[in-house]
């Protein structure tokens, strides 16, 4: 058999993919068992994988002279690298390692899927030969990455919420303190002095865990629903400005390449759609009654809209972004 030696970028890619798989498995084990050593081992493994992946993107640029952003392979690769990087930052800041297994596993899947789009090295088509590519693409892809992390946190929120609800007959709703504050005549005039209806405690899960229910034992170790809701908000608060700058830089670039900053091209409008969904999220989140389960669903839907914008439009719908003269 004829074995060609692997190039540096391929070696780094193999290392990142393997470390992601190992890191994801360790962190998923950690989610279920809460054995500290699994997390302690996974964290450096994942960091090495992430550094290798950025190294791979740079090596590929050095080898080919083309920024590895301009096709689906390059951008999916950047997406997975940014997802892991953003997650690492959030995990250190807000102690999110419990969700790491899911985030890293999704990042690894996107990377593996991206590999199937690797067509080798192609020079950029004229419209993509612009410095804007190096600004716009990483910004947009980073926003997608943030939304992916938010999606995982929202999914965990929903699992915990519905498990709590199904365990007991009591509705997961207002806390007694909230009702008191809102009802006070003197306070009601201060519009924002009302509590969030998002639960801080999940008594059904707590008692099921005490009775030995395995799933309850796992879910009990997650942050409270209220904290998960705040985490989702914080991550979307990173993603939405990134998406906004991404759309603005895209519009600027479009003005240079195609003459108009906004052409109603399917990719632009799909990004606008996602932007609208996350604007809805932000507005619903200003209302305490809509925090929690409803906004978590909007976040899940938002990420589906991102997948549609990212992959659906590229693959199924042609437009200026699949530039043909």
């Amino acid at each position, binding site marked *: 058999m004829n074995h060609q030696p692997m190039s540096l970028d391929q070696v780094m890619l193999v290392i990142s993919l393997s470390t992601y798989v190992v890191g994801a498995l360790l962190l998923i084990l950690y989610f279920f068992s809460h054995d500290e050593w699994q997390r302690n081992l996974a964290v450096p493994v994942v960091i090495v994988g992430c550094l290798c992946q950025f190294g791979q993107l740079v090596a590929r640029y050095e080898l080919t002279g083309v920024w590895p952003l301009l096709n689906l392979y390059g951008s999916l690769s950047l997406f997975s690298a940014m997802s892991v990087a953003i997650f690492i930052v959030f995990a250190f800041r807000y102690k999110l390692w419990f969700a790491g297994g899911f985030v890293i596993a999704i990042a690894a899947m996107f990377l593996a899927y991206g590999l199937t789009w690797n*067509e080798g090295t192609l020079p950029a088509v004229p419209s993509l030969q612009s410095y804007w590519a190096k600004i716009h693409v990483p910004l947009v892809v980073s926003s997608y990455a943030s939304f992916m992390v938010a999606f995982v946190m929202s999914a965990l929120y929903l699992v915990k919420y519905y498990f709590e609800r199904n365990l007991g007959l009591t509705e997961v709703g207002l806390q007694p303190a909230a009702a008191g*504050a809102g009802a006070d005549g003197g306070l009601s005039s201060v519009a924002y*002095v009302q509590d969030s209806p998002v639960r801080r405690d999940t008594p059904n899960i707590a008692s099921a865990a005490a009775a030995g229910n395995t799933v309850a034992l796992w879910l009990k170790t997650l942050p409270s629903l209220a904290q998960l809701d705040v985490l989702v908000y914080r991550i979307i608060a990173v993603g939405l400005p990134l998406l*906004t700058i991404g759309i603005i830089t895209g519009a600027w670039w479009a003005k240079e390449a195609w003459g108009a*900053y906004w052409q109603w091209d399917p990719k632009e409008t799909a990004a606008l*759609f996602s932007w609208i969904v996350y604007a809805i999220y932000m*507005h619903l989140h200003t209302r305490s009654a809509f925090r929690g389960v409803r906004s978590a669903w909007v976040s899940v839907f938002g990420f589906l809209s991102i997948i549609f914008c990212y992959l659906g439009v590229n693959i199924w719908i042609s437009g200026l972004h699949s530039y043909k*003269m």
Partner: protein
Amino acid sequence: MEARSSSLNLYNDFIRTFSNVLFAVCLFIAWGILTLIGVIVDQGKDPSVYFSSYAAPLARLILRLGFDNIYHSVAYVGIIALILVSLAVCTFKRVIPARLPALRPVKIEKIPLNASVTVRGDEVSVRQRIEHFFITRGWQIRKREFGGEEWTFADRHNWARRGVLVAHVGFVIIAAGTTIYWARGFSGDAAVLTGQTVTIPHTDTAITLHDFTYKIEPIATKSGIVYQPIDYVSHVTVSGKDSKAREETIRVNHPVDVDGTLFYQASYGFGMRFVVSKDGKSVPALSNRILKEGEVITLPETARQIQYSQFVGTIDRQTGMPSADPRTNNPGVVLNAFDAGQPSGATLAPLGKRVDLGSGYALVPQKYVMYSGLQYRYDPGIPLVGIGAFILLAGLCISFYLLPARLYVKVEECKDGACTVGVAASTVKGYDIFEQQFDALVAEFRGAQAT
């Protein structure tokens, strides 16, 4: 009188509806749905395209509802207008009162983030120490008396309460910028044949195309050869209002500015000179034109039309069929024939080959001439849109990354050389988001007062 009260009711209903964030969310949902329809349904195509892509009833529905040009439909523009109205009403009725609340007393124990701290000292010194503690940590202190009781209010990032307003103003400015384009801007396309000059309507700009060049490279990929476009370049002479001619190069990503109107490289094509003959004699009236793809020659005294449908760069010499290579190695043209408007045949003819058209007519595709497709646009709203986008972004960042919080501090009771101090906190984003910081702050406060 009754008419006045009913119009007052109407006004109140309008204000109530438009100042409701949930109504704004409904408008956003409608905006989102219309936007999504435009992503899925091809925009601005010929009606026949919809009938060939969708079942007839669906195609009819798309056309009837104007989904083929949704972004310029009344519904789309109307939704954005409603969002702007809602934004304006909301700003005055909700955002300002909610985000910039007056200093008022509260029932400390009813606010979820509350604590009671014992501070040693008499009332005056306790108040001084409270003030000192918060000021040194960057909180802005204000004191007010309500019903003889003194309250201390400590605010953090108070100015950032206006972040939402900034974001909303940004959106309004963007909308204003796009409206200016509708009112005063224009755009269009011009296809300029090599050697020819076109004058652009709306402006006095004349553009002469000296030559158009393109570069396409065959690249071996895993799934075969891909012919990748590398460059498109138009060398032109332009003259604007001052009538001074100047040489310019227009290429993708490098437009040319003539008196504020930008000219972009948008497309290109192959014009074709056909020599048409009847009974062996050239027909000059039909042969002197250069046709672009899609144009037709009508044969006199017949019901026949010949359409120059498509240019083929390379005809495969073995199969005689068009090859994937778009470069001009062995060029030819695809011709369609129509009899009384009905398609009656098609052929692929290499350059220089005579094609018999019937009724004594024949045609030879003789020579191709490249043309450059330029797009031009004058948009005086761009600076405003840019400023609006920047303001919107700044507003988002202020709203998301700065958390204005207010502490309500009250010295409840002083006896035996110590005072009980009640502290409560609220933020513009509820309590959960501030819970940990509040706990840390209270712990620090307790620690500081213990000594």
